[in-house]
Each structure stands twice: as structure tokens, then as C-alpha cells.
């Protein structure tokens, strides 16, 4: 297993290009017709699904290689030719939906810098992790382990940065308004050319309003209360889902050079 300088650059270039596509979805998301938005969602879903499929097959191959005898018929049954693609496709579709809506609604420029920086950081982190773990992890499972290590590290940093940005972001005062009015106000503010896109944006806005209203009603004063901790845990969970879907979307740029058996990374 080797990793060349040029292939890292290519992966970084691909990751940056994918991040650029995500940014285009953000810029044009509100003005796209439903069909074009669906196409964008499909591209992202395929990317996430493909990454999930690759990781799942690598894991399954490592499992079979470790626990099933070479000549056993179980290896054919456990290969997961149907379940793994279906599960990956479902995960891709769902995470792509979350990602597209979040990308369109993400307004903070600083957050976008975090996302843009996260793309090359993931590739570089993966390469570093692969190099560091290559002496300890079997080659078949190494891409998955390196992905997990890189995604965990980069993802944690991104989540921390996004939560910090969320902490300092300005929010409308919902302390004196009812839940219905708060949700209604947030939903009403969402406008998009495509009806389906608008509905999705409004659903996300309603969730934001609910969380924000609960936060301001239950946590009127900042302090170390359990309610406040739960509120910020909700923020953390939301950011985690968003970051995970974004990193999953970038996964093909990271695992693109990995062969099916996991015997090489980068392909050179």
C-alpha cells in the first residue's frame, strides 16, 4: 500500500471540486426548479451512497477474510450483494436530503470556510491516518480504519468550529412569543422557487424555530442547567449529522483510489 504526492493532490482537487459543488447548491438552491434541485440531490445521494457502499464492502470483506474460511459457502452469503447496496442507497438518499437542505440554509460565511477547509483536511487526514495505521492494521481494513480516524478527527474539529460559530451567531428574540408564532415566522421566512425545495426548507426552519424557542423558553439565563446542556446537545447532534453527511459526501474523493480489496490506496 502506497500513497503518492500526485494522487493526494488529485484527491484534494476532487474533494475541493465536490465542496465547490456543495457551495453551488448553497448559492443556487433557492432559485433552482424542483427538477434541477432533485438532480443535485441525486448527485449528492449517489456520492454518499457510493462512499457508504465502498466502506461497507471493505468492512464486510475484512470480516469475511478474518472470520470465514476461504472455501466456505458462507462467504458468498455474507458478501451482502443486495443488503449493502440497498442500505447504502437509503443512507445516501437520507443524508443527501439532510445535506442539501442544510447547505441551502447555511448562511454563515465562516461556516462555509469551515466546510471548504474540511474537504482538503479530510483527504490529508485520511492519508496521514493511513500512513500511521498501515503498520498496525490489516491492509484489507486499513482504508476503513483510516477513514474512521480521519473523519472522526476532521469531523470533531468541524463540529467544534460550527458549534462555536452557532454559539456566537445572532438569533431573533423568541422569549415573548408563542411557539406557534415562532414556528410560523421561521417557516414564512423561507422562500424557494421549487415548491418541494420550499417545503423542505420550511420543515427545517420549523425544526430550527422549535429548538430555538425551546432554548429561549427553557433556558432563559445562561448557566450550567440540565436544560441548557440538553439544548446544546441538540445543537451538537444537529451539527454532527450535518458534518457527517458532508464528510460522507466527500468520501468518494478520499476512497476513490482504493481498490476493491483494499490492497492499495491511491492506485499508483
Amino acid at each position, binding site marked *: 500500500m502506497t500513497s*503518492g504526492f*500526485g494522487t493526494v*493532490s*488529485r484527491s*484534494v*482537487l476532487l474533494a*475541493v471540486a465536490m*465542496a*465547490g459543488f456543495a*457551495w453551488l447548491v448553497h*448559492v*443556487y438552491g*433557492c*432559485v433552482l426548479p424542483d427538477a434541477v434541485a432533485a438532480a443535485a440531490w441525486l448527485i449528492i445521494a449517489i456520492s454518499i451512497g457510493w462512499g457508504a457502499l465502498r466502506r461497507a464492502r471493505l468492512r464486510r470483506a475484512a470480516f469475511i477474510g478474518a472470520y470465514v474460511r476461504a472455501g466456505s459457502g458462507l462467504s458468498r452469503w455474507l458478501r451482502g450483494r443486495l443488503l449493502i447496496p440497498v442500505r447504502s442507497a437509503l443512507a445516501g438518499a437520507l443524508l443527501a436530503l439532510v445535506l442539501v437542505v442544510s447547505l*441551502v*440554509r447555511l*448562511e454563515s*460565511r465562516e461556516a*462555509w*470556510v469551515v*466546510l*471548504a*477547509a474540511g*474537504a*482538503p483536511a479530510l483527504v490529508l487526514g485520511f492519508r496521514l491516518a493511513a500512513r500511521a495505521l498501515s503498520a498496525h492494521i490489516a491492509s484489507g481494513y486499513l482504508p476503513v480504519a483510516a477513514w474512521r480516524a480521519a473523519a472522526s478527527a476532521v469531523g470533531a474539529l468541524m463540529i467544534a468550529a460550527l*458549534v462555536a460559530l*452557532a*454559539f456566537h*451567531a*445572532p*438569533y*431573533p*428574540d*423568541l422569549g*415573548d*412569543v408563542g411557539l406557534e*408564532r*415562532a414556528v*410560523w*415566522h*421561521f417557516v*414564512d*421566512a*423561507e*422562500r*424557494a*422557487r421549487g415548491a418541494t425545495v420550499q417545503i423542505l426548507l420550511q420543515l427545517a*426552519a420549523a425544526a*430550527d424555530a422549535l*429548538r*430555538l424557542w*425551546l*432554548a*429561549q423558553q427553557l*433556558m432563559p439565563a445562561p448557566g450550567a442547567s440540565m436544560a441548557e446542556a440538553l*439544548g*446544546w446537545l*441538540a*445543537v451538537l447532534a*444537529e451539527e454532527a449529522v450535518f458534518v457527517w453527511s458532508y464528510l460522507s459526501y466527500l468520501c468518494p474523493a478520499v476512497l476513490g483510489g482504493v481498490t476493491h480489496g483494499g490492497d492499495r490506496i491511491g492506485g499508483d
Partner: protein
Amino acid sequence: MAATASAATSPYRGRKGEAFAALGAAAALVWLVTHVEPLVWSGPPETEIVLDGTRYRLEPEQVRELEVLSLEHFAAGEDAARALVAAQIDARLDAVFARARQRIPAFLDEHYSLRGEYARALVSAGALVGLADPSGLAERAAAKLLPEQEWADELARLEAAAAERLAAHRERLRAGWLAEVSARLEHRRVPAPLPGAREAPPALVIDDWLAELAAREQSAFAVRQTIGAATAIGAGALAPALARAAGFRAGRAAAARGAARGGARVGAAAGRVGPAAVGGAAVCAPGGPVAVICAVLAGAGAWLASDWALVRLDEALHRDDLERTLDAALGELRVRAEAELLAAYDALLAREQARVESEIRRTFVPAAAGRERVPSAAEKGKGP
């Protein structure tokens, strides 16, 4: 050797180029995300309207529909107001002219009486020498049928009742319009701005507009201007008709003719009373000097009897005609009064309708132009 070195450095150059490309792409992406704003979909320009404290957002076409609805609703309301006023005028005039007609028999009794005959003869004679106004005769007769004060009071009551009915009608009209507009706007409700949010004020606050409309209507109908034209009608207008009907004439020439007719009656009476006076003198002759007084009394009695008989004859011949003529005169007066009052109220309602229409156009046309609603950036966000 050179070829080998070139082959060895070529992949390195390629990787270096890829690295630079990756760095450049990353830098370009960072620049883009920090300098390019996302496109915002605002849709067609919309107008915010506040009605009964609730906010609605309408597209220009819907604002125009609202304007047309308002114009048609208030125009129909004006027609209904005219019908309402016409019914009110009809009822009031029916009452006042019914009372006037009830006075016709008493008037005729007075007219065909010696007292009435001598009063008219006296006024006619006085008019000849300039001591009396001959037109006053007909006016006094008209005032008996349609007293001025009663007419003025009735008109004042009509005006008060009409103003009250119109105010109630306008109130119902506004309520109906409000209900219709509310029903149409029901699905266009939008939330009120959050406390502290900086939002442009709504283009049209219908609550304020309605309050202004109601205040102006109240002041418009409160002005006592309708009765002004109609008060000129009444007993004064009835007098010429009565004069024509009952033979009253205005002016000195007419007075002269009246006096001449009275003189002729006197002459005729004298002609008739001559033999009676001679007979009386014969009857009174045995009395000596008392016979002169007796003859005068007998002559006066014959005069009165003759006049009484002539009045009765006149009554027998003309009372029914005069009664019908008076009734027709009252009918004509009623028609004229009704037309005058309707015209006065029509003018008032037309002025009011023109003002309302102008208000609607002035209010809704700028609103139809609309303004693009741009949500403030602070309203949207993530996190608690």
C-alpha cells in the same frame, strides 16, 4: 541520458502541477464562499396588508381583485342607500301629506262659509287700495293645509332618520366588506414581525383606512345640507297651486277682479234686496221713524241671506271640483318634494360614493404596486 532524466522529472512536475492546482482550487473556493452571496428567491412582489390586527400578504393580482371587490361592494352599497333613503322619504311624505289631505274638508268648510267669503272679499278690497297683500290669501289658505312649522319639523325628522339609517347602512356595508375581505384573505395570513425585528411597515393598514372612512362618512352625513333645498318646498310651494285651484289671484289686478266680483255680488244683492227693503219699509211704515232702522236691518238680513245662498250655491256647484283640485295640488307638491329630496340625497350619496371610490383607488393602487419583501438576515439561523 537526457531522456531518462526527463522521464524521471516529468511525473514530479505533473504531481507538482496537480498540487498547485489543488491549492489554487482550494483558495478559489475559500474566496468564493467568503465573497459571493447566495441567490435569494423572492417570488412576485407582494404587499402586506393589516386587517383587524392580522397581517396578510398579497400578490399584485390579488390586491387588484381586492380593489375591484371594494369598488363594487361600495357601489352596490350606494344603490342600497338610495333605496333606503327613498323609502324613508316616501314614508315621511306619505305621513305629512295624509295629514294635509285630512285637513281638506275643514278647509273647504271654511272656504264655503260667509266668514271665509267676507275674509277673501276684505283682503281683495284691501289689495285694491294697497292695504293688504293679495298673495297672502293663498299662502294663508295653503298654510292651513300644510303648516310651515309642521313641514319643517317633518323634514328635520326625515333628515335625522335618514342620517341614522344611512349611518347604520354604512356600518353594515363596512362590516359586510370586512367579512368578505377577511374571508378572501384567510389563506394569505402571515405572522406578525417578531419583537425587535426590523421590518418595513405594511403597505396598507385596512383598520386605519376603515376608521378614516367611517369618520369621514359620519361628518359627511352629519352636515345638515339635504334639508336646505327641501325646506323651500312646502306651504309656499302649495300656495300657487291653491290660488289656481280656488280662484285666489296674486297681484293688484287680481285683487281688483276679486273686489269687482265682490262689488257685483253687492250690486246683485242690492238689486235683490231692493224689493225686500221696500217691503220692509212697508212693514215698518206703521212704526214711523223706526221704519228706517227696520228697513236697514231687513236689507242687511236680505244681503246676508243672499250671500249665504250664493255661497251654498257655489259650494254645491264647485266644492267637489275644488276638493279634487286641492288633492291633485297636494299630489303634485308631494311628487315635487319627493323629487327635490331624492335629488338632494342623490347628490349627497354621489359625493360620498365618489369620495369612497377615490379613497379606494388612492389606497389600493399604491398597494398594488407592492414591494418586495426581503427577510432580514437575523431572522434566519441555526443553533439555539
